[in-house]
């Protein structure tokens, strides 16, 4: 009953709208939330929105995953592997930055007791 949703254009529209809505949520969080964990969460959401957008817009429903096995040997019917490789890299990098940020935040909290980014003003400027 939802066959019309399977047309490539429609899927791409869905992906665009969905990923951008996710991006909106993340951006909204980034611009308004103050707690440092919330900020990191927002950043993670924004990142995953970009990942979804990329993979979603570059894949083709007719084609298969880019893995050659006994049943799939035709490279012409495979999806583009580059976005996948890129996103693989980007996910790991994002996680690394996140872990580092959390460790900064923990140490900072230990020293000053602050968790809200708008109150982080130790500098006397």
């Amino acid at each position, binding site marked *: 009953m939802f066959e019309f949703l399977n047309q490539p254009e429609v899927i791409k529209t869905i992906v665009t709208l969905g990923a951008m809505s996710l991006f909106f949520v993340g951006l909204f969080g*980034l611009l308004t939330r103050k707690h*440092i964990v919330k*900020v990191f969460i927002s*950043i993670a959401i*924004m*990142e995953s929105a*970009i990942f979804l*957008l*990329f993979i979603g*817009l*570059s894949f083709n429903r007719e084609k298969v995953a880019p893995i050659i096995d006994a049943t799939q040997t035709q490279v012409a019917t495979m999806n583009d592997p*580059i*976005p996948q490789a*890129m996103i693989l*890299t*980007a996910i790991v*990098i*994002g996680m*690394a*930055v996140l872990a*580092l*940020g959390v460790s*900064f*935040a923990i*140490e*900072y909290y230990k*020293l*000053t007791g602050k968790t809200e*980014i708008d109150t*982080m003003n*130790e*500098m*006397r*400027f």
Partner: protein
Amino acid sequence: MSSTLFIALPLLFGFATPLLSRLGKNALAYTSVLMQLSLLGLALSLLLAHSSTTVELISIAAPLGISFVLSTASLLMVLLFTLLMTLFSLYYLFQRRANAYANESKFFTLLNMLLAASIGLVLSSDIFNIYVFFEIAGISAYILSAYSKTALALESGLKYLLTGAVASIFLLFAIVLIYLHVGSLNLAVIAEQFQLLPYNVKLLISLLLLIGFGFKVEVFPLNFWVTDVYQGSTSLVNALFSGIVVKAYLFVFFHILYLFLPQGEFTLFLLYLGGVSMLVAEVAGLRQTNLKRLFAYSSLGQVALIFVAFAMQNIQAVQAAFFIVIAHSLAKFMLFLALASLEKTEQNMHIDRLKQIDSPFLMVMMFLAMLSLLGIPLFVGFVGKFLLLKSLAVEGMLTLLVMVVVASFIEAIYYFKLMGYMLHKGTRSEKVEVSLGEKMIFVSLGLSLLLLGVFPMSIAGFLQNAAEVLLDQTAYITLLVGG
């Protein structure tokens, strides 16, 4: 000789640090310096033997895979970075006995990773590879910023990290759109196809790139975090930030810009953006009393000046930009190293402290650096500023010319205020120890400021060549894509 060595060697060194630190702390420090020296020697030998642009492939041929392009322009930046990093390591080595960092092996790892990433940014011809190096440079800089683990340092590291993360999201967004619309990640292929894209997509990608890099190249509405980072980090590390990191980002931003938009569609906008950044930063620095923060404002101003020069997008201006890059890197490096010498004894960085310092040597060196930053003739800073203003005048951009000059004047106000503090007559109680090795580094930096200022023609030809290469979009495309 392979240009990959510039990236792979520091990376290898970074990975092998735990192994080397088993051999003893000194062994690690000396091998690190040795490695950087050999890179410097490699860069110099390339400079002497250099004839044309070379492409270094990774795994597969150029448009498909990653490749490193070593042209005159990128060689210039590589040379600058390795030179500064070597000097930095030497300086650290000389002051190490009295003032070693905790966890030294990690410090050396970070330095070499930073070097590898900055060189990678400059050399790479693949936009996603640039993103990866963007992240490596960023993440090492965050840790270096927070290295001392005081509340200030952690705050600056955290702020640096958050802005960096947001910047990388925008950059990644741009890269994603580029790949979706162009179908390639190679800069040359994108450059070829970029003009054919619909206007709105082109605009969106350009703006996302501007925001992504804008955070890192510290242009006006995106640079509010910079001063905090400079104030919180140690002066030693600040020398790297303003000497190497920003320059790498600036270079790669304009490298991409020249490739994607060779006609200069947004030139006027970028020029005024730079002009406004410069004015705002200098005005904001006027009443600053913390030395590190003050120099941060000055860095913002100078970086905006370089931004203006690059944004002009013609050979004379880009040549001027290279002059300013060299001048600013050397001079700011010197100033921050001098601050680091002061920081050894006391953390307090209020400008009143300059009245107390009893070290004529440091004073003279700071004078040299400041005069060069202000663009006083006989220093290399003047050459850059002059060439830039000349090309602004020739292009008839008088408003911008006056803006730059006004900003220079405001900068002069606070730099001469500092000099007034240093010339203050009165008892000077605070002795600052500067060892012979440190002195040699200061003197060599100061002399290079003077010599390049008096004999700018010695490098002008090279810089002009670099500017031509950087601006030549077609040659780049031909080189990588062929025909």
